[in-house]
């Protein structure tokens, strides 16, 4: 597994894709610091951007990379290696290079601007963590979709749809539900609903950091317990880990029975 991981990491880290991804995040993050002139605002804006960019790029890249490495996978499949180590290594190699590009691209401008020594060091770490989780989760989801779908266009389309679903549609449906059932106690329901969407979980982590004063304004014991204690942070982190793990399990399962 480590061999495959190492090679796909090296392969990708040399590609234009990953380098432009790194550069892109460098520009975005440096630009936000430069134009906002204030770190707190930059961190806040970047958090919003990361929610959709990391998930979108993760989902696109997972598909593209899988389809582009199909023949390579065939070559490796004929070697004396276990299937699960091939696919998990391959996925992890891709994910590691995406994640490194993101962390370096976003982190460098903040380091250069001295965020580590400011009050925003913890927000900054949270921001990186969320980016890493979202990249891993969405690249795994799209890798799995591609593994399942021989048709590239269908696979790519489905991946983009899944992203759109989690990024926008899900929240739209949730809002309709919340407004429609206004008269019922909905705090537990809404928190549970949030846990089924990794973008929403990441958003909640951001709310815990940036909007805690507003969140405490809602009267509900469940909410105040969730947002007022470390419970919210711990549950969200745990769920993100689970979300990162489940698609890998699916990849493994599907890889075992697939024909090449």
């Amino acid at each position: 597994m480590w061999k495959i991981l190492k090679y796909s990491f090296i392969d990708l880290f040399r590609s234009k894709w990953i380098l432009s991804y790194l550069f892109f995040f460098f520009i975005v993050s440096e630009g936000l610091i430069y134009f906002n002139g204030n770190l707190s605002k930059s961190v806040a804006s970047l958090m919003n951007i990361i929610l959709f960019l990391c998930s979108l790029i993760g989902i696109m890249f997972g598909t593209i990379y899988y389809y582009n490495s199909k023949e390579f996978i065939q070559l490796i499949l004929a070697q004396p290696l276990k299937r699960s180590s091939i696919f998990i290594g391959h996925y992890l190699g891709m994910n590691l290079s995406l994640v490194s590009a993101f962390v370096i691209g976003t982190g460098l401008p903040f380091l250069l601007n001295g965020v580590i020594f400011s009050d925003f060091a913890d927000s900054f770490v949270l921001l990186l963590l969320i980016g890493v989780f979202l990249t891993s989760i969405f690249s795994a989801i799209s890798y799995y979709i591609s593994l399942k779908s021989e048709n590239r266009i269908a696979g790519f389309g489905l991946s983009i749809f899944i992203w759109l679903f989690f990024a926008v549609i899900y929240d739209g449906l949730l809002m309709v539900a919340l407004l429609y059932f206004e008269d019922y106690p909905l705090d537990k329901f809404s928190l549970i609903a949030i846990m089924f969407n990794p973008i929403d979980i990441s958003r909640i982590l951001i709310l815990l950091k940036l909007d805690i004063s507003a969140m405490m304004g809602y009267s509900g014991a469940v909410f105040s317990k969730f947002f007022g204690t470390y419970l919210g942070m711990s549950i969200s982190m745990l769920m993100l880990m689970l979300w990162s793990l489940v698609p890998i399990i699916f990849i493994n399962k599907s890889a075992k029975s697939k024909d090449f």
Partner: protein
Amino acid sequence: MIRINIIFLLFLFSMQSYANIIVSSNSDIKTIKQAVEIAKDGETILIKEGLYEESDIVIEKSLKIIGEDEAVIKAKDGNKVFIINSDNVLIKNLTIKDMKTSYIEDISAIKINNSNSVIIENNTLINTFFGIYAANCTNLIIRDNNIISNAVEQSSSANGIHLWKCKNILVENNHVEKHRDGIYFEFVKNSLIKNNYSKLNLRYGLHFMFSDNNRYYKNRFEDNGAGVAVMYSNNIEMIENDFVENWGTNAYGLLLKEIKDSKINNNLFKTNTIGIFGESVIRCQFEHNDFMNNGWALKFISSSEQNNFLYNNFIGNTFDLATNKNSISYNVFKNNYWSSYNGYDLNKDGIGDKPHKPVDLFSTVISDSPVAIILLRSMFVDMMNFAEKIVPVITPAGLEDLEPMMKEIKHD
């Protein structure tokens, strides 16, 4: 009047060494009660270091009661300690502690009735039910006191400094902690509250009722149950105070209810659930305040009219302004800085070229269905707000800052 009081105090201070009566466990006079009984009008009583278990010390003449360091009075049976019924009294340097909770009586460490020119200075009041309770008084000075209790629930706790029907009062440099209300004013006029630090009180850090023509400035109100409440009062000046970290349902930095002709200037509202909550606020001035990282910087309900919001900074608040429909009209928002403003300044005059609308669609949704706040910062919500900005349907039309500033305002 305050000035005269200060001179009076200086005079008292110089008299300290000439104590007429000394209370100590080693002297003939072992209790304060005894000393007060034998003291003549205008005399000074010095209380030596030691623990005195006493209560119901009634002062009917002009006295200066001064403690040495470590002079501690433990309330006997938890009853009230000093009852002042005369003018020109000084109580200084004492530690008073351990009062009982009472639902019938206003038990307090120092109770002042119908007096003039009383000074309560540099005392430490620990776990007193009411700390200082004054009724029908004039020219009081309450200064440099440390009033700390351990209130757990509102119904079984009382206020740190409680003033009722008073005039010309100075409350300065006190530290009030863990009471029901930190400082309570009811029917108090022409008074000044300055440099106090009020925190962790269950209800309000400062509570004003029916008290006109007062000023409070440079106070800090932190982490109180619901913040500071100013109600049914006119002509109040609230200047340079800090309202910070008042969190929770119905918690705010400052609650204004039925307030007219007041000034709220140069204050800091930081990380409160609501910065200012206004209900029927009329002809008030809000200038040069900083609203930072609050859930809502301003929330106004009922009819609030003819207020001016000028040169305020709104930075990093989740929502800058919320209001229920048409409840806020004939108000002027001008030359404020809004960190959420995304306009431009082509003519480089420092003023944004297009107006800023501080109320967005989502904050309107939230006032109808509060649980929807869970969707805050969702891309769906951003899209919804964006659509509403282009084609406004729900948000109040007139509510906008026509000349938003491009840069954070530096207050003098």
